């Protein structure tokens, strides 16, 4: 393993896990120090499978500073190897989503073989718009995400590293995600999980936790154990990530709807959501959204405010980011014994010990 | 009807009577409810020396336990006072003003003037001061001069159980911030105290003892030290007039000056350290306002300019005692040009 000289990029969003859901829904707080620790665990895993170069995003929130500090404090011979670490410090930091886009673009320009993004659904969405065909490994920093997985970073890093190094081929270790493309006015935005139409009038604090305001919901996938708005579909009409179809729901106040789903639409919030109707959402068929001056929420965050006369359309696309399937990669690694080696010589007794030590 | 109770009981009674009378009076402080493990409710300490004992049960929800967090809860008492409450906060030892002084002298003391006369801050900060319990340098100081220095604060220094009850009730009803300084060595002192509620007005000194030879102005616990000295001096023919100012801000200058104009001699007894204390302040007052009446230099009996020592051998030397007071009185009585 590890013959390739692979390069990986790691984008970590310092702002994730701080929004109003901490106040309205007891959502988790994910400390900066733990994000920095995750980056370091990834680096150790990458080095162990032969990744030679790691490109790290920079931020003013303390993640890149903590990693830099750790890098300087590493003791030669004592601490396990890391790839060569380079910081993508070429762009001014704005504190906004543009930082993630700039970092991903620089990583692609530097021929990254994999991009890891640490954050929530919002961070993954931004990274997905910029990563092109480079495999994406979205890791959740918190408990409130439908798209990125809550995964131990070392294990995820092994899987990502094996894909980056070419030890597991992309067709076995990654899968194409579907995305929801929304167009309105001159803007085109992507959602990885769901698009929701709300009668709220303002983007405001972005998060969405008021089911009474929701009128339509479109999900690229919907899992029964999901969190967020897609969990409504996940319980009523699940649609697996692997299926090309998504699902579309017409919502209504619970007392007026055919079904009422008690869904975890945010961490700590299990609320009744009324569903009038649902149907499969077929790929590549544009749908007009009935917005009427409301807002569109992408992956649970209000993103687009619409004027009363402004229309919006939505399309399910099957050409979303190529995402690393951690479980599939490591299953393949086990099948190929990529992480197993035998000692070169000597016979073995019944207990598995080498009978004689062949090495000198 | 008066009966004999302790200084501690007098303070407790004043609090209870005011809480009974006025629903806006609340009490807060460290260990008000502490001391019984979990809830503390069954055996509420009533503060570290038990001054508020019993109130926690008697006035549910109005006796608040606080974290050891003086800035926050003294500040909270001040903030609540601006919004219609009459909080009595207990700053366990006056020495701890060091961790919350900003809230007292930059906030409470300033509001009325700084906001153009539109604020009222009827807060009382009860605090214990003074040496004698072998509590050493950070738990024994007599820091009332520092508060006296600050315009906007009133400072009461009760010398007996009777004074404690009347001055505390007045403090609670007063519409300005009051620093109420209780001497920790007086808590078990007893005296006659009326059962009924009463107030002692601020800025009205008490002439504890009449005499024509020497005026002794004594603050807080020093009043009883002066009384002890006066008794001894009387037998040697020197009659001392003892003035207890009761409050150092406002200060009853009139009574002090009247007494000195009669006796022509002044000794000030102040447990505080000697620079910029009540002794220097009152000496300056008399030198300026009653110079013509003085027949001898003014004497000051104070603590030395040192931190309060721990060892009993040193602390006993630190605290002004009756002998030192008597010596000072004799020196001014016998002074000849």
């Amino acid at each position, binding site marked *: 393993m590890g013959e390739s000289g692979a390069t990986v990029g790691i984008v970590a969003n310092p702002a994730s896990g701080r929004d109003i859901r*901490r106040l309205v829904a007891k959502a988790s707080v994910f400390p900066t120090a733990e994000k920095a620790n995750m980056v370091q665990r990834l680096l150790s895993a990458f080095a162990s499978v032969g990744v030679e170069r790691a490109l790290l995003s920079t931020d003013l929130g303390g993640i890149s500073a903590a990693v830099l500090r750790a890098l300087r404090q590493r003791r030669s011979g004592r601490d396990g190897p890391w790839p060569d670490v380079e910081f993508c410090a070429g762009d001014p930091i704005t504190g906004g989503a543009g930082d993630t886009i700039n970092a991903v673009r620089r990583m692609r320009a530097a021929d990254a073989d994999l991009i890891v993004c640490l954050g929530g659904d919002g961070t993954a969405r931004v990274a997905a718009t910029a990563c092109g065909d480079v495999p994406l490994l979205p890791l959740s920093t918190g408990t409130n995400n439908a798209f990125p997985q809550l995964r131990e970073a070392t294990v995820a890093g092994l899987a990502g590293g094996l894909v980056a190094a070419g030890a597991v081929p992309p067709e076995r270790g990654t899968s194409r995600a579907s995305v929801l493309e929304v167009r309105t006015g001159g803007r085109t935005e992507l959602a990885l999980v769901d698009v929701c139409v709300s009668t709220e009038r303002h*983007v405001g604090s972005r998060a969405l936790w008021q089911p*009474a305001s929701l009128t339509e919901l479109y999900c690229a996938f919907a899992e029964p154990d999901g969190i967020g708005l897609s969990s409504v579909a996940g319980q009523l009409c699940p649609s697996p990530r692997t299926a090309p179809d998504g699902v579309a729901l017409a919502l209504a106040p619970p007392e007026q709807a055919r079904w009422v789903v008690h869904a975890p639409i945010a961490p700590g919030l299990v609320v009744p959501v009324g569903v009038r109707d649902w149907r499969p959402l077929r790929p590549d068929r544009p749908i007009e959204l009935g917005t009427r*001056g409301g807002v569109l929420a992408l992956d649970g965050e209000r993103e687009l405010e619409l004027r009363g006369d402004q229309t919006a359309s939505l399309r399910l696309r099957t050409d979303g980011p190529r995402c690393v399937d951690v479980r599939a990669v490591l299953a393949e690694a086990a099948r190929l014994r990529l992480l197993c080696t035998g000692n070169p010589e000597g016979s073995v007794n019944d207990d598995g010990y080498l009978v004689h030590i062949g090495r000198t | 009807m008066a009966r004999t109770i302790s200084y501690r009981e007098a303070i407790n009674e004043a609090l209870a009577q005011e809480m009974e009378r006025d629903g806006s009076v609340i009490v807060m402080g460290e260990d008000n409810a502490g001391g019984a493990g979990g809830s503390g409710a069954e055996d509420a300490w009533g503060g570290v020396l038990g001054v508020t004992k019993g109130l926690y049960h008697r006035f549910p929800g109005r006796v608040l336990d606080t974290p050891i967090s003086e800035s926050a809860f003294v500040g909270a008492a001040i903030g*609540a006072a601006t919004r219609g409450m009459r909080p009595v906060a207990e700053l366990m030892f006056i020495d701890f003003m060091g*961790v919350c002084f900003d809230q007292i002298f930059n906030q409470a003391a300033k509001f*009325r003037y700084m906001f*153009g006369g539109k604020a009222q801050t009827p807060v009382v900060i009860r605090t214990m001061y003074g040496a004698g319990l072998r509590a050493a340098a950070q738990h024994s100081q007599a820091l009332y001069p520092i508060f006296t220095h600050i315009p906007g604060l009133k400072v009461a220094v009760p010398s007996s159980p009777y004074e404690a009850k009347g001055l505390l009730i007045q403090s609670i009803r007063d519409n300005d911030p009051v620093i109420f300084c209780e001497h920790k060595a007086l808590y078990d002192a007893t005296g006659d105290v009326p059962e009924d509620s009463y107030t002692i007005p601020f800025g009205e000194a008490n002439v504890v003892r009449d005499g024509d030879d020497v005026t002794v102005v004594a603050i807080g616990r020093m009043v009883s030290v002066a009384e002890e000295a006066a008794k001894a001096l009387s037998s040697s023919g020197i009659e001392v007039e003892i003035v207890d100012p009761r409050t150092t801000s406002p200060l009853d200058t009139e009574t002090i000056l009247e007494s000195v104009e009669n006796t022509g001699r002044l000794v000030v007894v102040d447990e505080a350290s000697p620079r910029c204390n009540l002794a220097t302040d009152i000496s300056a007052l008399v030198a300026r306002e009653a110079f013509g009446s003085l027949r001898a230099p003014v004497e000051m009996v104070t603590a030395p300019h040192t931190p309060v020592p721990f060892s009993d051998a040193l602390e006993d030397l630190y605290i002004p005692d009756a002998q030192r007071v008597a010596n000072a009185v004799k020196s001014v009585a016998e002074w000849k040009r």
Partner: protein
Amino acid sequence: MTDTLSTSVAHELDENALLQAYRTMRTIRAFEERVHEEFATGEIPGFVHLYAGEEASATGVCAHLDERDAIASTHRGHGHCIAKGVDVKAMMAEIYGKKTGSCQGKGGSMHIADLSKGMLGANGIVGGGPPLICGTALAAKQQGTGGVGVAFFGDGASNQGTTLESLNLASVWNLPAIFVAENNGYAEATASTWSVAADNIADRAAGFGMPGVIVDGFDFFAVYEAAGEAIRRAREGGGPTLIEVKFTRYFGHFEGDQQTYRAQEVAEARENLDCLKRFRSRVTETGRLEEADLTAVDTQVSDLIDAAVDEAKAAPKPTEADLATDVYVSY
């Protein structure tokens, strides 16, 4: 099995409320820009710290408050005063040190207060306000008014013991208190990215057992929503919240500050992030308010500030008779 939720607070904003919010923000901006100009003439004495750029915070929070509620402010307090309803002309007169000022010329810019409006004063002491707000919240709780206390403080004050003690006490006593950390990036000239070891001030909330959230301080609606949820929660007995509002101040720490420590960011914020510009474009683009309505407000505000300055300049100063009054209620 389910929580019940009321509707979103931002939804409650009708056209009148939107116009009022705009008027408040515009008044703060116009007030501060005018003080900036007038200070340069040398006619305004003392220290003046301007709030321009931060209007959405005071406005978005105070829009939820009424006479039951009290706020404590900072040395950068003009915006909080205006948002809580303190008379603008009296404020201007106070800044000029006049007898007609909010504090009869005895307070000045750093101490403008109006307790009858629940405005507990701008405060010259960094970290002075949070303990006081624990007290106003305690009073509201004891009196059962349903009122809340709001402590505005800056990134500098977030490092003060008084602030941290107050966060703790507010949780221990479950007070209806809201702590609004206005992080404008600099404590005087020192960057908060250096001085605040926690990376985000909001992160500190976890250590005090309360929710901590970050909102975009240039976005009125974001502040309004977060504050609305926090205040509603506090009124209902849910306890305190820490809200970190992130933005940039447009002027220096004090008037006269050369601001050698920062350059580009102010111009960029004014151009691209400005709360008034964003508010205006959003309410007009979504058809909720007409340009003409907003322009009319601009004119009215401008007239008000002109009159405030003229009256302040013409007003008498306090006299010797005022020197020793109002130290005590009685003495």
